[in-house]
C-alpha cells in the first residue's frame, strides 16, 4: 500500500494531475531566485523549452543568454560560480552535459564550484525528436565525476523542491528533467532531502524492493499494485538522488532479498549501476535492471517508446518476479 508518511497525492492512481518535471524546475528556480539574489540562470538558446523563461521574466538582469554554445555556457557558469554567484545552466541533457562534459569536469568539478547543471528533455520520453535528442547516458557521465551530486526528479513538485535544495547546497549539482507531462505523485507535504530516498509503497513483509528514479517511479507503483494482485508484496522507493547513494538502499535490499531498478536511462552507469555497485559491496542481492538495454532510442510517442524499450508496468512486474526467483533458498 501507499506509504502514508510520504504524503503522496490522493489521486495518484486514478486520473493523476499531469505536469512535466521541467515545469517544476521553472517554478523552483524562480523561488530560488527570490530567496537568494546570487542565483543566476543561463540558457543556450532554449529559454522556453527548458522553462528558464519564467526566471527570465522574473529576473531579466540575472538571466544570461549565451547562444547555442553549451561549452561556453558551462565555462561562463564556472566563472560566475567562481566569483560567488549560484548559476543554473540549462539545456537539453544530450548537449549539456552531453557536449560540455570536459568543461564541467575541469572548471566546475575540479574547482568544486556550486554551479548547477540542468539537463532537460532527458530519456526516450522526449519522443518524436528521436535518438539524437534522447539523453540516456547523462546520469552515468555525471555520476562518474567526483564532487557532483546527481538528482533525477520523479515529478514536477519534486523537481521544484530539488531545484530549491540544489540552490542551497553550495556544491556542484547535476539535475535531470523530462519534457513529457507525467503523473504528479508527490505533494507539497512530501518530504524531500537530497540523499534521502522516499519509500512510496510498502507491502507487508516485502519480497522485492523496486528502486525507481524519475517519472518511471509511477510505473513502479503501478507494478507494485499488480504484484499485490498476484500475492507478491513489494516496496517501492523513489531514489531521486543517485549520488551520493542513500544507505537505506542497502537495508531495503537486505530486508527483501531481491531488487529491481527502474530508470529511463542506459542500464549501465545510472541508477541500476549505482545500486549494483553499492549492493555488490554491502549486500549482494539479485538485481533486475529496467532501462535502456545498451541501445539508442528512436522517434515515437513517449508511451510507445517506454513500452517498446521494455520499461512498462508489466515489464517491471516480470522483472520483480524474475528477481524473486533468483533468490537463494
Amino acid at each position: 500500500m501507499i506509504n502514508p508518511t510520504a504524503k503522496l497525492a490522493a489521486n495518484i492512481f486514478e486520473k493523476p494531475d499531469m505536469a512535466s518535471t521541467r515545469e517544476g524546475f521553472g517554478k523552483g528556480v524562480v523561488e530560488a531566485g527570490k530567496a537568494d539574489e546570487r542565483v543566476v540562470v543561463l540558457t543556450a538558446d532554449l529559454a522556453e523549452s527548458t522553462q528558464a523563461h519564467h526566471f527570465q521574466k522574473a529576473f531579466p538582469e540575472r538571466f544570461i543568454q549565451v547562444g547555442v554554445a553549451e561549452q561556453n555556457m558551462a565555462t561562463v557558469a564556472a566563472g560566475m560560480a567562481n566569483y560567488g554567484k549560484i548559476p543554473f545552466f540549462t539545456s537539453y541533457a544530450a548537449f549539456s552535459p552531453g557536449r560540455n562534459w570536459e568543461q564541467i569536469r575541469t572548471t566546475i568539478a575540479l574547482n568544486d564550484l556550486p554551479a548547477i547543471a540542468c539537463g532537460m528533455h532527458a530519456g526516450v520520453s522526449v519522443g518524436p525528436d528521436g535518438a539524437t535528442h534522447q539523453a540516456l547516458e547523462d546520469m552515468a557521465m555525471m555520476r562518474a565525476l567526483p564532487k557532483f551530486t546527481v538528482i533525477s526528479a520523479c515529478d514536477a513538485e519534486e523537481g521544484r523542491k530539488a531545484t530549491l535544495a540544489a540552490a542551497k547546497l553550495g556544491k556542484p549539482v547535476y539535475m535531470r528533467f523530462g519534457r513529457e507531462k507525467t503523473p504528479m505523485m508527490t505533494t507539497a507535504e512530501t518530504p524531500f532531502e537530497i540523499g534521502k530516498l522516499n519509500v512510496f509503497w510498502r507491502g507487508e513483509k516485502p519480497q522485492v524492493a523496486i528502486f525507481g528514479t524519475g517519472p518511471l517511479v509511477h510505473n513502479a507503483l503501478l507494478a507494485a499494485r499488480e504484484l499485490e494482485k498476484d500475492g507478491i508484496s513489494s516496496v517501492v522507493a523513489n531514489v531521486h538522488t543517485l549520488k551520493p547513494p542513500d544507505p537505506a538502499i542497502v537495508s531495503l535490499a537486505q530486508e527483501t532479498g531481491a531488487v529491481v531498478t527502474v530508470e529511463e536511462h542506459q542500464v549501465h552507469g545510472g541508477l541500476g549501476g549505482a545500486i549494483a555497485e553499492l549492493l555488490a559491496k554491502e549486500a549482494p542481492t539479485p538485481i533486475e535492471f529496467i532501462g535502456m538495454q545498451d541501445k539508442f532510442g528512436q522517434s515515437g510517442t513517449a508511451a510507445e517508446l517506454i513500452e517498446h524499450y521494455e520499461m512498462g508496468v508489466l515489464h517491471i512486474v516480470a522483472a520483480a518476479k524474475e528477481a524473486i526467483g533468483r533468490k537463494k533458498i
Partner: protein
Amino acid sequence: MVITDAEVKNIEEKALAIRKTIVEMLEAAKSGHLAGPLGMTDIFAALYFHVLKHNPKDPAWAERDRLFLSNGHICPVRYSAMAHAGYFPVEECMTLRKFGSRLQGHPERDMLPGVETTSGPLGSGLSQASGYAYAARMDGKTFRVFCAMSDGEQEEGNTWEGAMFAGKYRLTNLTAIMDRNNIQIDGNTEDVMPLEPLADKYKAFNWHVIPIDGHNIQQFIEACDEAKSIKEKPTLILAHTTPGKGVPSIENDYRWHGAPPGKGPTDKVPADKQKDAFLEELQASAR
C-alpha cells in the same frame, strides 16, 4: 600610468630571476613545458610587479585583480612569478609536479591560493574569465579580470564561443592576453592549423585589439592602460613572443614546447649540460 626607465629595469631584473627559477624548477621536475613559460616571462613579471592590483600576503583579497591562466601548461611562469612576488618561498618551486606539492603539473585552484582557476585542457579560460567579469560587473566591482591564453588554443571552438560572449556583453573589465609564439606541440601553428589573421578575427568578434612585442615591458604596460580606457569592448593584447625567450639555443624551436632542461633535443647542448648552459645563456642575454 607613465612608467619610468628605472621601473622597467626593475621588472626586467625580476624577469631574469623568474626565468632562472623556471629553468631550475623544470629540471628538478624532469617533465613539463619550458618554451612557453620563458616566452611569457616578461609579461608575467610586468603583471605581478606592476600591472596587477594584488597582495601576495592575502591572495583572497576581495578587491584584487583576477588573472586567469587558460593555457595551464605554462604554469611554471605563474608559479615562479608568484614565488618571486612573495606568495610562497622560491624554494617551493622545486616541488613542481612532485607528489604532495601544491604546484601541480597543471594549476589547481583548490591547491594553491592565488591560482584563480584550475586549467590545463585548452580553450576554456576565456569563457571562465568572461563569466567572472560578467558577474563582477553585475555587482559593480571595479577590479579587472585578465585572461592569459595561448595561440594554439585558438583552435578550440570554446575559445571563440567565449570571444563571442565577451564581445556581445561588452566586457570592458576583461583584458585577454594572447601568447602569440607561433608554436604548438606538433609544429608551427600556421602548419598545424593556420590561425591568421588573428587581429582581424578578434576585431570581427567586437574586440579591441592591441598588437605588441611581448618582450617589451613598456609596450605591455601601456597596452594594459589602454585597455582600461576602452569603454565599449573587451581588449585583446596580441603579444608576439619568442618561445624559449632568453635562451638563444632553444628560442623558436617547437621541440622545446613540452620538454624540460635535461630531456630536450640534444643537437645543440648535451642533456646533462642543459640546465647549466641555459642558466648561463639567460645571464648572458640579460647583459
